[in-house]
């Protein structure tokens, strides 16, 4: 439960309680304004009734032909508002807009292979691993989680334009590509 509303440029003045968390990156102004100036409908904020920001999602539409899709660039929830299904609601909105406005074939996102909680959540929402991207999160040496720390899963969920589920595959975890090949 929370207020779902559009992401605005001036929200950058208010997102500290979300962005001071270690898992959320704060980018340059241009990053946010770039998304807002192109895909404002794929960006949204969740706000508590008190007016405090709880989380946000930033997305875009990209690809050509059958690869045309919605992409989740950032999805984040402040620590004190986790376990409230906020992420689920924001994903729902992004999928709906990707489907109805952008007419994409699927929605995709990248997630650290070590992030079991997030992967579980996305699977629950109907996403599946399409491929494993090697060293997507930099190759600064291996952390405690080994390769899972720096590799990403590219996860996808087909939309109504892909009724035959051509954009996904069942053996995605075994398909490994390098970070260079994806973008």
């Amino acid at each position, binding site marked *: 439960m*929370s207020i779902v*509303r559009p992401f605005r440029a001036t929200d950058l003045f208010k997102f500290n309680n979300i962005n001071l968390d270690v898992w959320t990156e*704060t980018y340059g102004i241009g990053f946010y304004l*770039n998304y807002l100036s192109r895909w404002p*409908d794929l960006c949204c904020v969740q706000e508590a009734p008190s007016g405090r920001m709880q989380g946000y999602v930033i997305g875009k539409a990209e690809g050509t032909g059958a690869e045309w899709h919605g992409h989740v660039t950032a999805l984040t929830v402040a620590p004190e508002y986790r376990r409230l299904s906020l992420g689920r609601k924001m994903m729902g909105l992004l999928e709906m807009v990707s489907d109805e406005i952008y007419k994409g074939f699927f929605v995709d996102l990248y997630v650290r292979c070590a992030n079991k909680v997030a992967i579980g959540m996305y699977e629950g929402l109907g996403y599946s691993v399409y491929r494993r991207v090697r060293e997507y999160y930099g190759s600064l040496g291996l952390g*405690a989680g080994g390769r899972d720390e720096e590799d990403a899963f590219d996860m996808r969920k087909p939309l109504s334009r892909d009724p035959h589920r051509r954009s996904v595959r069942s053996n995605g975890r075994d398909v490994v590509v390098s970070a260079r090949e994806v973008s």
Partner: protein
Amino acid sequence: MSAAALDRQIRPIYDALDTGSNKSAILACNKLLKKHPNLDLLKALKALAYVRSQKVEESLVICDEVLAAKPTDDATLSAMTHVLRGLGRHTDLIKMFEEALKQEPQNEELAAQTFFANVRTGSWKAAQLIATKMHKQFQEVRYIYWNVICAILQANDAATPPNMRTLLYKLAHRLVTSSPTPSYVSADRFYLHLVILRELQLFDEANTLLESDVGKSICATSLLCDELRREIWRMRGLFQEEGQRARQRIIESKDRNWLEFVSVLDAAFPPASSASNGQNGVSAETAGETRDFLAGIAEQDGIRDRSAHLALLELERRSRDHGLSKDPTKLVGLLEKYFRMFGDKACCFEDLQPHMLLDGDDLSRWTTFLESQTSSFVDVPSIQRVINVHKMLRYNLAASQITAELEKTRAAQYMKDYFSGLPLGNDLPDTELQPADALAILTAQAYLSVWKLTGHEAQLYNAAVVLEYALGRSKHAFQMRLLLIQIYRLLGAATLALEHYRSMNVKQVQNDTLSHLILARASTFSTASTGDLTFATECLESSQIYMSNSQETSDFIVRAFTQEKYSMIPDFIAFEDRLDNSLQRDLVKVEHVRMRVTHEQINSELIDMELIELKFIFDRFHHDNRDLDIVLNYQPRVQDTVYNQTLLFDKTPGLGWLWIFLKVYIRALQQASDVDDTVEDKLLIGDRPKQSNDPENKLPLKERLAKRKQEELDELTEDELRFMNYATAMADWLQPYHDYVRPPPAAVLAEASKQTELRTGRPLQGVEIPELTNGSFKKDEEAPPVKDSPEILSTFFDDMKARWLEVVAGGKLPSEALHIATLTQEALILLTIETLRFKPASVVKVHKLGALVQSFKAIRTKAIAVMKEIAAELSKYAEQEGTSERRKAFVEACTGAQSSSQIDSDFVLNVAKRVTDARKKVLEGVGKGILRVCTNHA
């Protein structure tokens, strides 16, 4: 040579510019310019390389040459765009494109660039005219909408008179309705159309649009349009209809957006301001019916969603306010139910806060309920319940329950529970927050409350130790760091505060909203006087974001036009403006100046530059973007927030503080400077910043500088007030002598021109210098008679010494001692700034000001004597901080934090060592710095 060959030769210049090799870019330009001396592109690129290597005067010459040639080719225009933006010459940029467009009126790209040049400077009227022409000529519908949004932006501009505003909206309306395609072809055009209808209150037309199938479908997928729709319905007083629609969405689409629930509630209890509409009457029936609806949803959702449950609470509260609630136990009953269902969520406390403002029987029942909850630490949800119980009980404590003893008992309880809960997080990775974190924060806040009650510094130690321990267990708990920053600043352990601040990895736009945590009054802790530029550098680094803003943001405003994302444009503009005119930006600027003058030699270059910058700031309309709510507050509601409790000197510097310090420094620098307004106008490169519309800013500068408003003075500490009075008295006293001795503008300009010629080989451009008769500018009138210095100038230093003794003897915080020491030092430096003009013996002799100079000496001698005493004491103070007795005393003071056996004395000793070392460092540094300042300003 063929065009292709020339292209090949020019490419390396671009490469050099891209990689920041400006020097080689200049060399390459020079080489090619020998062969093509009239090629504008080469000149433009050379000017750009000069701008980027900060050689402004050199670039100006070439820049003017290219502008005079009125270029029209893309490459030159694009290079010149960068040059002119770099120089801040936006007006010239517009002119350049206008000239180019005149020569090639059929060129659509040129027209668009001219339009954008106006957009970048916010010249909406001019932009609108261009858009009109563009539509006539190129027949693209989007140009109609460019025109529309420019009309709206012009209407919204604060400088536009109200009657003009409506006219502009009417114009926008006519444009939209006469467009060959309807607005609903895109959500953003539709949005713009709705904005106009809302403003003009054309609700019928809005209704037709919104009720159409396409309108409905746009609102279903666009949050932006739906937000506007909701607003329009509310403006029309359609609370019932909106409530019905919301119910439908809640039931059919399972929408759990809180806004839908607010709509349901507003249908039962319309906001007071709009209840004039007869059909919106409040009745027990509608309230009851709404309650049944919400209860049904709550039943259905159970613990899956909090919306309906919270809405029931809100409904009960509104019913009570309207005297419609019959059952007095109902509210607390709902609170209890909510707690049972969601007490294991971290946000439960925040959810219930507005509904917990209880007293009397309600409060005692609620308190009994909370107290009856048994504490369990078996799993994360149980700890969360324990935490919520503590927070909620604490929130409603009465003033009589907040004594030092009781707060200490509470601190001990919170800490005990913290350690009971801590093992649950043992297996979590380093990167995770610990579930028991909030209990450590509660402990610290209870200690801070004891500190506030007793004034015992020891309680700050206890709070710090608990937080340091908990931070060791939960490395990324930034809420703990926030409190530690506050505590360490109070304790004068500034480097530790800075360490924690840096660990939070504050970057980009966060610098604007968060740097106040570490930079408010940071000159108190700065040892720039000894050459340690840590804080001065922090000021500069945190200010980088303002450069990025002025360089980047307008590109995205332009992008929003080309992408037709009209809904974003007003907000992008607001963002750019708020950052550009940020209060924090200029608070940091002033702090930086205060640090700079302790470190650098005071000379005319420093004086002139800072004067011009501070005067610009003085014309701004400031926005306060500081995040003052980031520190979570768990103090009882009858107390101040923990952030306010722990503010350095109990006050946060804001607009009033800024205004006073600007006035003090502008006045002093203005007197010291030879650059008066007429000279400044001629020497200024680039446009002046837009003036704010505040009528007060239209008064003459002299009058504005003399003003002292109560709300401004209220933001000063007692000692800052003393400093201000000292500065004002000095400026008043010396004004006539400065005015008499200052060389006339013509002489200043002649000198500036000479200097420019020495550097660039060409005299100053565009400035006519009147002939001076043999270089002499002695005034005809007599020098003003020398008056004695006002008494306050010497008593100030006595007062500061007395204050110093009072603070040190009174066992006040070290930060307060530093405050007095650094302000006294600032007063001496200000004396130097004010008297620099009278330093050369020839000036004194020519103007017969010997007696005046004598009185400076007396003040200076007094100042230096006092400062040396303070410096000696500071070094003694610092020495004490470094002793083992001091550390031992710290450890012994932390009885509370050590009461649980988990935090051992070694840990406390380690914190003690770090705190006392950090303190020693700043006390010693400031003391040494004062001595150095004494020598430099003797």
